[in-house]
């Protein structure tokens, strides 16, 4: 088309632009409508799902885990906010927030005993006691999810793996490889001696004592000079299978 000069030409161009805009708006509106409809369907289906399975989600740990996997696939984090559609509909946020608060409670209550490091299994047992629930009703996965949410608090809540156990740390202690090695070794008997540590890791005496002294200062270890052989033993309340010890601590 040859471009024509003059007022008419300008008006024409404006009219064409208007038409394009109108069509464009129409398309956008249709798209939004479709989207809205899809969302409505999604929402109603979700509501139905929630109605049907709410109690399952609250009660059944395996179902909870599957639900989380499903959410992860869709790219939604149901725990991201307590105000989101998911949380409102499913009440699943509340479940984990409540769990989180109880975890903080227990960690603080047992801190003076274990130095702020507690076996995940012990923690689960205490949680179940507090909730008056059976151990099966609360999975490790649940605890881990609740703890991961606690990281936001920035108070050093973290799960660390030591040997075959998982420990929950509630104090911002820096544990290096030496320390976790010792904790791993202590899992066998609940205690270690300097000699044992030297032998196991082929460390110098100084290195072993250094690491043990740090653990002692952090309140994670206790010394025991009472054994017949006269060798000092370092005990670690956090790895000692003594759920009843920690249980009474938590109650008091």
């Amino acid at each position, binding site marked *: 088309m040859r471009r024509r000069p003059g007022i008419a030409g300008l008006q024409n161009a404006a009219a064409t632009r208007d038409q394009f805009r109108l069509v464009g708006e129409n398309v956008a509106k249709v798209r939004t409508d479709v989207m809205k409809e899809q969302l409505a369907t999604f929402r109603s289906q979700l509501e139905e799902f929630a109605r049907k399975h709410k109690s399952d989600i609250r009660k059944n740990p395996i179902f909870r885990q599957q639900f989380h996997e499903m959410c992860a696939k869709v790219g939604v984090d149901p725990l991201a906010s307590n105000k989101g559609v998911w949380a409102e509909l499913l009440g699943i946020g509340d479940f984990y927030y409540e769990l989180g608060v109880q975890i903080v409670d227990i960690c603080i209550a047992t801190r*003076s*005993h274990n*130095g702020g490091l507690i076996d995940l299994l012990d923690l689960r047992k205490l949680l179940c006691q507090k909730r008056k629930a059976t151990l099966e009703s609360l999975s490790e996965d649940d605890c881990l999810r609740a703890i991961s949410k606690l990281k936001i608090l920035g108070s050093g809540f973290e799960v660390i793996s030591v040997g075959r156990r998982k420990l929950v740390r509630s104090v911002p202690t820096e544990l290096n490889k030496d320390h976790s090695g010792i904790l791993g070794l202590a899992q066998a008997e609940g*205690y270690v001696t300097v000699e044992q540590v030297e032998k196991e890791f082929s460390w110098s005496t100084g290195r072993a004592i250094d690491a043990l002294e740090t653990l*002692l*200062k952090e*309140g994670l270890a*206790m*010394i*025991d*000079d*009472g*054994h*017949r052989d006269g060798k000092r*033993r370092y*005990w670690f*309340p956090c790895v*000692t299978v*003594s759920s*009843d*010890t920690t249980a*009474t601590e938590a109650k008091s």
Partner: protein
Amino acid sequence: MQRLGDFRLPPFFSYPPYFTLQPVRETREKQVQLWKDLILDYCRSQRVHTISLEEDFPLFSNPKIERSLSHEAKEVFLAALVSEGRAEWMDKGHKKCLILWLRIQDWANFILNFVKDNGLEVMTIEEIRSGIDTRGTELEGIDRGVLMRALRQLEQKGKAAIFKGTSADDEGVKFSV
């Protein structure tokens, strides 16, 4: 759960490091607190009024885990009780310790309630310590010194009058309830 007679021992009593004085302050504080509570609970339930550091005391060793408290540890735990008014050294050498599972003032109230509840007005000191009325109660076998101090507190408040007999055995008290 380990027991000592009919007394249920707390779990920490079976955990060896609690028998060694802990060098780190916070751990030590926790340890001292647990022992203080245990000593008071045990003495109260077993009606033990004095602990001698020189003699064996069932609470200070656990044969099951082959651990026992050092002399220093015993003294630390008892001294902690003394500093809270829950115990008193009976000699300068800190060899014998009087355990006050009730503070003097609490003893005074306890005695007052006891005589009220039992409608008693006049008792001799020996009756309180070993008479029929107090048998099986916490007053049975109460340390004479503790008892006299509690009674004197009551006397100051005008709730009791101590009177002397012909001999120390005759000393008595009249309660005005």
